């Protein structure tokens, strides 16, 4: 049973560029959440998608946007990259509200230079 798959694993971008990160949820899960984890810090909630709509959003600017597809996979887009966007981006999937907990992927390490 495949878990959460994220791609790519590593990415280097230049300041001002745009990036797209991808996530395939665990089989049977329909909800996808994205988190940003700066080095040495805990993950910070970006947003959550359910039924192809953004259900909840954290304190992140509009440069961060997302999408969920009919097969429940999701994309995270970041425009006008800043040096401060360098972080590990984690995708977490769950069934419905996630009361049983979330299954996380191994993340995408984004470096902005």
């Amino acid at each position, binding site marked *: 049973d495949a878990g959460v798959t994220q791609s790519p694993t590593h990415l280097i971008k230049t300041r001002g560029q745009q990036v797209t990160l991808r996530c395939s949820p665990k089989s049977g899960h329909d909800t996808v959440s994205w988190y940003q984890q700066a080095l040495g*810090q805990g993950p910070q909630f970006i947003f959550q998608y359910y039924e192809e709509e953004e259900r*909840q959003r954290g304190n992140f600017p509009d440069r961060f946007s997302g999408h969920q597809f009919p097969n429940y996979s999701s994309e995270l887009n970041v425009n006008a990259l800043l040096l401060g966007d360098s972080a590990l981006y984690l995708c977490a999937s769950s069934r419905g*509200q996630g009361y049983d907990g979330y299954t996380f992927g*191994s993340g995408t390490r984004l470096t902005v230079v």
Partner: protein
Amino acid sequence: AQTVTQSQPEMSVQEAETVTLSCTYDTSESDYYLFWYKQPPSRQMILVIRQEAYKQQNATENRFSVNFQKAAKSFSLKISDSQLGDAAMYFCAYRSVFTGANSKLTFGKGITLSVRP
């Protein structure tokens, strides 16, 4: 808004010994969920244990157990018979019971646990 505090940035334990990782949280809600996640160098967050606030009994999962003190808003993780594979970063997380808009996880800053052979 809820907050989660992990005040110990690093801890070390001898293999086969017991270690306790501390976590406190702040919330005005009476019912919620608490989690401990482990993040090894592979970066994947792995669920260690889950506690429902309305349950009096402390959760246990094999060598892992929690000491949940609701009045004190404390949620510590005890690892017994520590193994080398337990070395990782450990995060405490909070989740509201309310549906929809409050289903996010709020994490602490984490504790780096090292295990000495």
